[in-house]
């Protein structure tokens, strides 16, 4: 059974079914919600099969499917996952039903289109992580823009149009440069097959150009400082579920791209540009944490914290050792879940009071105790408290980075302190204190639906924090393979270097 294709394209089928359902406005909305929920749940359980069936000992691509697509150009429909992509697929399929459920009541107009957009988005996300052909990858990677543009623009806040355009054009500009690099790779290797390109030794001069082109795309997507400015805008204006997907999955496409493409294909360029990336990462960690401290809008604060967390990820990826990469991967998964949850948490109070202004709240612990607990768990996970998922990733990244540069590690570690500062400060202002406003006092605690939304996330955050091996083990062989390949390439280049020195 072509399970990867099934997981990828089943959401599209759901979207088509929603599209053809008729009836009056209310029935259509009701049907759209339940079809979307069921589709995404089925997809989630199907994708769990990938995890169960996954051979955790093997670094190879698994569940591979390959069909000729454009044979004259050696472009194929080639799908497969390894330890690097497995959890990103799961993250996408995990967050989609949560998003559908979270939008159950908060989205009240054009529900049908909304659910269609989310299901199409799921197809694009899963496809991005499964594609083993560059053209296929690019199609999914870029295809994400269409539903996300509509989600921000149609169901977003007051400045949605500006944000949607900024999101679209910013990420498009990065991606088109990658497209050129992909075409250059095609003429080098003779096909757009990703496994072939991963084994191909690009000459060092070319590597740098191609690395920069890929970097343009992934750095924007990630987003790294200073090309992160689209993110706060997009997050603030997007509907809650849109922010969840944006923070939870779309940002990870950048990190995935670095791990999947930039490191293994361009190991020498990655080494050459490593300090550059470290500098940007450390600036991101410190600068955006400080910016986050100054925010008065909850979503904006979390958006900036995402940029800071992604700074850790890029640091971990380009130290290119086992610990750093594991940490970066884990940090991405953890952040995907935690920041998604934090946006949901903002969404809960936003649905009730229709403001994200931190000062409008305060003392929620009194009338919303369950909410306060969930918020606390997620806040602590974002801070990186041991026992939560956030700790493992940050710790491993710092361990990895310490082997490469003490200074960058020390600077990045200050981000942990700043992170604790802005998150605790946020939590204190929203949850603690006394209730001064009447409209806040009457806010009801979490509903059953909201508890159902948060329960799996809380469970997952604790699981990842307490027993990370379930997640680290399957990615281990693929990452070990990657590290080995990068080091071999760098050793080979070093071995060449003395001879060129001697010939001078």
């Amino acid at each position, binding site marked *: 059974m072509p399970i990867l294709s099934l997981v990828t394209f089943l959401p599209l089928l759901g979207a088509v079914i929603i599209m053809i359902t008729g009836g009056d406005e209310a029935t259509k909305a009701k049907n759209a919600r339940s079809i979307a929920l069921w589709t995404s749940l089925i997809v989630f359980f199907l994708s769990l099969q990938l995890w169960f069936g996954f051979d955790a000992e093997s670094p190879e691509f698994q569940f591979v499917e390959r069909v000729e697509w*454009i044979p004259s150009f050696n472009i194929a429909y080639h799908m497969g996952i390894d330890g690097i992509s497995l959890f990103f697929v799961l993250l996408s399929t995990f967050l989609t039903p949560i998003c559908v459920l979270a939008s159950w009541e908060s989205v009240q107009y054009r529900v049908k289109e909304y659910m269609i957009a989310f299901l199409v988005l799921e197809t694009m996300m899963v496809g991005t992580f499964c594609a083993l052909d560059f*053209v296929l990858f690019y199609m999914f990677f870029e295809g994400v823009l269409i539903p996300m543009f509509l989600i921000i623009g149609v169901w977003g806040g007051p400045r*949605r149009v500006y944000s949607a*355009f900024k999101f*679209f054009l910013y990420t*498009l500009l990065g991606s*088109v440069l990658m497209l050129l690099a992909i075409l250059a790779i*095609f003429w080098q290797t003779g096909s757009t097959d990703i496994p072939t390109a991963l084994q191909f030794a690009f000459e060092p001069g070319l590597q740098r150009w191609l690395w920069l082109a890929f970097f343009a795309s992934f750095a924007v997507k990630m987003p790294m400082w200073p090309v992160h400015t689209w993110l706060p805008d997009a997050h603030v204006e997007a509907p809650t579920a849109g922010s969840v997907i944006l923070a939870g999955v779309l940002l990870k496409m950048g990190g995935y791209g670095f791990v999947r493409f930039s490191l293994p294909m361009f190991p020498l360029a990655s080494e050459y540009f490593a300090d550059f990336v470290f500098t940007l990462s450390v600036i991101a960690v410190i600068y955006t944490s400080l910016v986050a401290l100054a925010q008065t809008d909850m979503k904006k604060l979390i958006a900036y914290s995402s940029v800071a967390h992604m700074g850790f990820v890029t640091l971990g990826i380009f130290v290119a050792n086992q610990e750093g990469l594991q940490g970066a991967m884990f940090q991405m998964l953890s952040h995907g879940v935690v920041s998604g949850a934090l946006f949901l948490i903002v969404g809960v109070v936003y649905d009730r009071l229709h403001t994200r202004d931190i000062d409008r709240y305060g003392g929620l612990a009194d009338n919303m105790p369950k909410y306060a607990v969930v918020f606390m768990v997620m806040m602590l996970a974002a801070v990186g408290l041991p026992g939560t998922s956030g700790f493992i990733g940050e710790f491993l990244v710092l361990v990895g980075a310490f082997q490469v540069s003490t200074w960058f590690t020390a600077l990045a570690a200050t981000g942990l302190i700043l992170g604790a500062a802005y998150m605790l400060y946020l939590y204190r202002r929203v949850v603690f204190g006394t209730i001064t406003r009447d409209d806040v006092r009457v806010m009801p605690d979490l509903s059953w639906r909201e508890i159902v939304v948060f329960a799996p996330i809380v469970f997952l955050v604790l699981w990842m924090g307490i027993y990370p091996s379930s997640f680290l083990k399957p990615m281990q062989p693929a990452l070990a393979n990657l590290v080995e390949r990068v080091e071999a390439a760098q050793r080979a280049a070093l071995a060449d270097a003395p001879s060129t020195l001697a010939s001078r």
Partner: protein
Amino acid sequence: MPSFPLPPLSPALPEIFLAAASMALLLFGVFRGERAAREASWLAALALVVAVVLVLGGGGPRQLALYGMFVTDAFAVFMKVLVLLGGIFAIVMSIRWNEQARIARFEFPVLVLLATTGMMMMVSAADLISLYIGLELQSLSLYVLAGFKRDTVRSAEAGLKYFVLGALASGMMLYGCSMVYGFAGATDFATLAATLSGGETLAIGPLVGIVFVVVGLAFKVSAVPFHMWTPDVYEGAPTPVTAFFSVAPKVAAIALFLRVMIEPFGGYVADWRQVIWLISVASMVLGSVAAINQSNFKRLMAYSSIGHIGYALIGLAAGSKEGVESVLIYMAIYVFMNVGTFAVILLMRRNGEDVEAIDDLQGLAQTHPALALSLAIFMFAMAGIPPLSGFFGKLYVFMAAINAELYVLAVIGVVTSVVGAYYYIRIVKLMYFDAPKPAFDRPFGAEMSAVLAVTAVVTLFFFIAPSVVVDSAAAAAASLFPG
């Protein structure tokens, strides 16, 4: 009495058929009078369909006819099918619109047929003379079509403007042809190629001649800096004519462009590449930047088509087999997304009046969801966003550019495509983000819905089997590169 054998005519059968059909249709129209417009249109569409069949049936190896004036090969077949498709769509789309605008006359389909015949002649031209004859046949028909709504100032102005500037361009091109003839002593492409070959670079005389030919052709494809007529003519001409203008003549002129540059002068790509490079960059930049401030949809499409021609010319600048192939793929995709967009423009009527401002599209997603969805598909496709068809057009063009090491051109191309994406997604924004305006007049008509459905489906699902187009484009491109 000297024997005078009739040259073999069978390769030119589709053209002969179309010419005869247009004469017959003219007679039919004259006898039936003004009421005949609808029947004449359907008959003309039928004639074009028959021509498609004849063209496809006449495929096969390269054949010369009419004393080396006329050539059919896989390239000609590919481009003629596109031209004919453009003609069919244009005629079908014109029927209702012309009736509503009270310009339903039988001359309209006849002129479209004549223009199409000229275009097919252009595609198959193997000689500077037949090239010019084909070009003039199509141009003269188009001048009349542009001014077809003769009682409005805008349409008359469009016709006149197109005629004056077009005549100037034809003159330049003829001058270029005469220079090439003067230096090479031949007008047919095969002899030209043979005579000119051998040198390291092209001699200055023929080179100047080529530049003039390029100027004429650039005018016909409306490439910058010879694009000035395009926005005014697009805006002024009756919308079905604009739809026709934006597709069939573009395809034919690009075909001619490719054949002229590759067949006789293919050995000197390095000499003429810089010219194509420049007009390609200028077209892409102007097409994307100048469209941003347009509020009239037809004018916007004029700039959009200028931009698209710029992308197509990237493939020509590559000057390689891959380059030609990419242009063919680009044009095939372009035909469908452009026709679809114009189908939407033709349906923009409110209270019996045509509306052309893009602001009139506000909230279309709520008043006409299907129409909005199709237009969104066309707009994303034109912006080159995957998985829609337009992405593949750009993919192949840039692929050819990278292979020819035209890196700067490729980078300028992708950057302008992002700038251009702005105005395409602005239309999506108007339709989906904004509060709705009153609905457009219904019914749309079965034939319009059909055109819209066909073009939208092709544009949306192109990715499922791109090989159909890619492979035939490869075969077509190969026929321009003997050996």
